[in-house]
């Protein structure tokens, strides 16, 4: 993708995105990175950056959002993967070098990386 930075280019991007949205099937995948003070201090911003890079490299369509502290501060950085119809999985102590395997196994192969799981929420 060519380097783009101007607002004019953003206008062109809008037209393209509107076309894409019409055909885009929302994968229903969201990667959530904890960004409370504890998360930030533990390196969550770098983990988030690694997630964005990995998704871009693999051309995977997923939403990425950040949330505040959930109280498991000793396990930060925390990364949740939420997919439609599946339990929401929380991974703990996720450093940037773990992100590649996480995306590969959980998103690409559909296999939870059990050894890194610190929490799970059953979908209703």
């Amino acid at each position, binding site marked *: *993708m060519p*380097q*783009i*930075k101007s*607002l004019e*280019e*953003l*206008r062109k*991007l*809008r037209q*393209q*995105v*509107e076309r*894409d*949205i019409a055909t885009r099937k929302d994968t229903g995948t969201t990667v*959530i990175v904890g*960004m*409370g*003070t*504890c998360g*930030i*201090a533990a390196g*969550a*911003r*770098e983990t*988030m*950056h690694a997630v*964005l890079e990995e*998704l*871009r490299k693999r051309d995977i*369509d*997923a*939403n*990425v*959002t*950040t*949330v*505040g*502290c*959930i*109280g498991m*501060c000793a396990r930060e950085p925390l990364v949740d993967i939420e997919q439609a119809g599946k339990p929401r999985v929380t991974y703990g102590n996720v450093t940037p070098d773990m992100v590649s395997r996480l995306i590969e196994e959980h998103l690409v192969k559909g296999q939870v990386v059990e050894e890194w799981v610190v929490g799970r929420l059953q979908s209703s």
Partner: protein
Amino acid sequence: MRELSLHILDLMENALAAGAQHIRVTVEEDTRANTLTITVADDGCGMDTETQARAVDPYYTTRMTRHVGLGLPLIKAAAERCAGGFELNSRVGKGTTVMVSFQRDHIDRAPLGDMVSTLMGALLNDRDAWDLAFVHRIDEHEFGLDTAEVRQILGDIPLGYPAVREWLETFLRQGYEELYITVAA
């Protein structure tokens, strides 16, 4: 924290937690006055006088999950370590402004660090319908982003949409590159 930009991210997260719809972030470096000043101003719920006084206490927090709130005490300590200052002004129902200054060339002053990742981190917060007015000034040079302008162009398309977030990150990186090249010249 290792970088001042991590503190800025933390302050922005505070603003979002307070329900801000507008956050103004300014980083001003004055090489002649030898100061670096960070301002994060929001229009969130604000704090009363008592809460303002307690906000810099590391054992005070509004969170239910923990009993420490380290963000503000840490940045205050960082500023004081660098012959700088810390100011917190807030009004209930109006919002909060945090202004932190540092002696720019102080040996203990942490680097500003990766502002692009900080801004992206805040912009990807799952709260939507808020705008950021960001400016980084180094003497007479400046670079900024106003997401209100971006939203006007995008219409209903969210900032978190993959192609848009890539545009944002590229825009920020290139803007910073140009700023630093201009300043070095």
